[in-house]
């Protein structure tokens, strides 16, 4: 029931509005504008069409959509765009969101269910938004005796580290946030943070089940880290570089490495499942044994952040699989060289190579993600001793077999510089 106070006066209402506007203006003038000028003084402004993009010019250009194109064109060449938008966080988060929805529907179809249905008119596509709102609205409960700084920092670190992996992934030629020469090593180095975060968080929760879960996560990730790295080693041997873009280019020059290193690809797939704590390797979160493992004490958005991080990680590892074994963005051209748009000419923004690469990269990544979702429907959870045995004894041996195959291919003159199969 809407109600208003008994002593309501319209004049007072208008007066209060004016009072509000007055204070807003005061604060903007005295604090806002000086801040803007200080920032503008230190930030180098980009030149657009030979002119420096001052705020005045920006505002005049933003009014007319056709004149906005150069600004966007310039923005697409900046690092900020790479980090925040395309191969970086937004793209990864978007794929993560689609993954969550697809996983739920896909699993539901497998289990003869319907899945999300009500949120959003069509097949419950807004379920994720509903879940996100619910998580944000929930109270965050910090257990008594918890180590608070670590407890708060760990979920944020989890997302940050997952995003750091994404920064190294090239999604199209030239589209990579950090194009480092030792890209592959950097990926594995960053992935090494995850068990640490799990252990820190579980220790900070001051609870028994998270502690067991954290120890399990540590055991599991260390056991699978070594076959994980070794399985990528045969790819490095075949391509002769650690740079991820270089690995893709060498596959474009010859063939996809999955044909030469199928065992490594298999080991990489298994290890990434273990790294992601997905069924059948979800021991650190095994709910019938240790409640929710190291996530037991998470609540509200802390849980949401960790879930977001783990789905971004899923994207990152699937993308890494595509880059290492499935030829990255290589694929037949489907986009035309030139496009014409009726009202606004967006031709300067249009890059057929990048569009093509993005299409194929996204499609392949999604295929791999689906493959990673599949075991959840068909497999029970594995036991920790079998898991460790698999990691230490079986997968490492398998990777070595493929490393020897790779060496034979190189020294036999089939691949490598000047090899038979190199175009």
């Amino acid at each position, binding site marked *: 029931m809407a109600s208003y106070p008994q002593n309501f006066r319209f004049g007072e209402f208008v007066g209060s509005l004016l009072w509000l506007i007055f204070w807003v203006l005061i604060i903007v003038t005295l604090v806002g504008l000086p801040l803007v000028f200080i920032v503008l003084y230190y930030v180098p402004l980009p030149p657009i069409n030979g002119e420096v993009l001052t705020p005045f010019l920006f505002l005049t250009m933003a009014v007319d959509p056709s004149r906005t194109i150069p600004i966007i064109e310039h923005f697409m060449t900046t690092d900020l765009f790479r980090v925040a938008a395309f191969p970086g966080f937004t793209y990864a988060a978007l794929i993560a969101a689609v993954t969550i929805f697809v996983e739920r529907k896909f699993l539901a179809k497998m289990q003869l*269910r319907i899945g999300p249905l009500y949120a959003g008119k069509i097949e419950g596509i807004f379920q994720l938004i509903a879940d996100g709102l619910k998580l944000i609205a929930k109270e965050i409960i910090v257990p008594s005796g918890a180590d608070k700084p670590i407890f708060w920092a760990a979920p944020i670190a989890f997302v940050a580290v997952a995003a750091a992996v994404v920064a190294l992934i090239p999604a199209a030629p030239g589209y990579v946030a950090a194009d480092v020469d030792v890209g592959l090593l950097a990926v594995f180095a960053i992935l090494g943070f995850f068990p640490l975060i799990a252990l820190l968080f579980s220790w900070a929760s001051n609870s028994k089940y998270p502690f*067991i879960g954290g120890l399990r996560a540590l055991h599991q990730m260390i056991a699978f880290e070594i076959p994980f790295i070794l399985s990528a080693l045969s790819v490095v041997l075949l391509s002769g570089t650690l740079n991820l873009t270089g690995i893709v280019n060498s596959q474009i020059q010859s063939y996809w490495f999955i044909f030469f290193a199928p065992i490594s690809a298999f080991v990489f797939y298994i290890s990434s499942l273990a790294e992601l704590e997905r069924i059948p390797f979800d021991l650190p979160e095994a709910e019938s*044994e240790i409640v*929710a493992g190291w996530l037991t004490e998470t609540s509200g958005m802390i849980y949401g952040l960790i879930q977001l991080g783990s789905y971004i990680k899923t994207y990152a590892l699937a993308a890494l699989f595509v880059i290492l074994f499935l030829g990255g963005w290589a694929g037949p051209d489907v986009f035309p060289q030139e496009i014409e748009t009726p009202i606004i000419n967006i031709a300067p923004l249009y890059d057929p190579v990048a569009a093509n690469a993005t299409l194929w990269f996204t499609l392949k990544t999604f295929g791999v993600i689906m493959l990673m979702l599949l075991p959840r*429907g068909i*497999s*029970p959870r594995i*036991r*920790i001793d*079998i898991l460790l045995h698999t990691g230490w004894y079986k997968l490492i041996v398998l990777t070595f077999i493929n490393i020897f195959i790779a060496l034979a291919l190189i020294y036999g003159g089939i691949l490598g510089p000047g090899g038979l199969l190199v175009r």
Partner: protein
Amino acid sequence: MTSLEDKVEESRKLGLQIVKESEEDRLMTLSVGPQHPGSGHFRFIIKLDGDYIVYCDPDPGYVHRGEEKMCEYRNVIQNIPHLERPVIHDSNNVTYSYSLAIEELVGIEVPRRGQFIRAIASELNRQVYTLYWLAIYGIFLGHSTMFMWPTGDRELFIDLLEALTGARVTHAFNIPGGVRNDMPDGFKDRCIRQVRYFEKRLKEYEDIFYNNPLFRQRTEQVGVLSKEDAAKLGVTGSVVRASGIPYDIRKAEPYDIYNEIDFKVQYMKSGDSYARSYVPFLDMKESCHIIEDLLDKMPESGEVRAKLQPNPKGPPGEAYRRVESGRGALGYYVVSDGTPKPYRVKISVGSFRNILALPYLLVGQKLADMPAIYWSLNYWPVEADR
């Protein structure tokens, strides 16, 4: 290899006596339940040495409702609706042996058609229970598809029972003297159709769950209960049959028309968690045959219940009758003092007998085997607490 008693004695010492501080530091005490996704309304306190369980103490009673005391305040018919509460998924079997005991005390003969309908309802209900049990076993091992499929297929039998009795889970269908009402028209064809479909589904269960290498790895040779120990501990139902003792009340002491039905007692010899989870599955298969056989041999018409006096009472005396429920032998010991209210009712339930084996099986196993062993014991916490 230490004997079973030694192992448990050792664990008792560890748990109950004061141990040295350095040893105590090694151990971590976990209270599994009642707020644990892998326990149900039940708690067991375990102590861990590393990843190994060295001590286990079951502590049921969270859903104790004093059914036995309640029985003493109501007459024999009024007792039926609350007696099925302990296992609402298996309510026909719970009231079955109670009805048998009361019939023995009061001296009633159940009409032949009534006996058949009783048996059909109890077999259908056993399927409902076993599917629910299997679903939880699936999710306990992290197999979510095996949770969804049986809970979905359970509807087949729930629908049948709804058509038969009018309620989906708490039927109150068996009463002393027969069953409450006759079969609806067309029930027989519908029942046969759904049971045949279910038999096809069972093959898929086997493919996705029982033949899954990961599932076999987790359950085979885990929590082995030998034949001798099973007999000594007095476990019952699928647990004792998995240990190589082909003991089924339906065969051992056939009640009503079970001696006319042709079926085999399903049992396995290995006694591990796999056998304990596979025997209920075999029972479900056999149950399908039993239902078809019962529908075949059922007389086309006739009375379904014997008429009772209001407030039926028999002479003073006592009776102990058992049936085979989803969790094993379910016995009612009823003492009557000649009044309409029973003087004493004791329910000997399979769950309560099976849980005795839990400390014996858990000690020395890994923590990850806990759900695989615990739920394979076919334990229903509410039933054990009564």
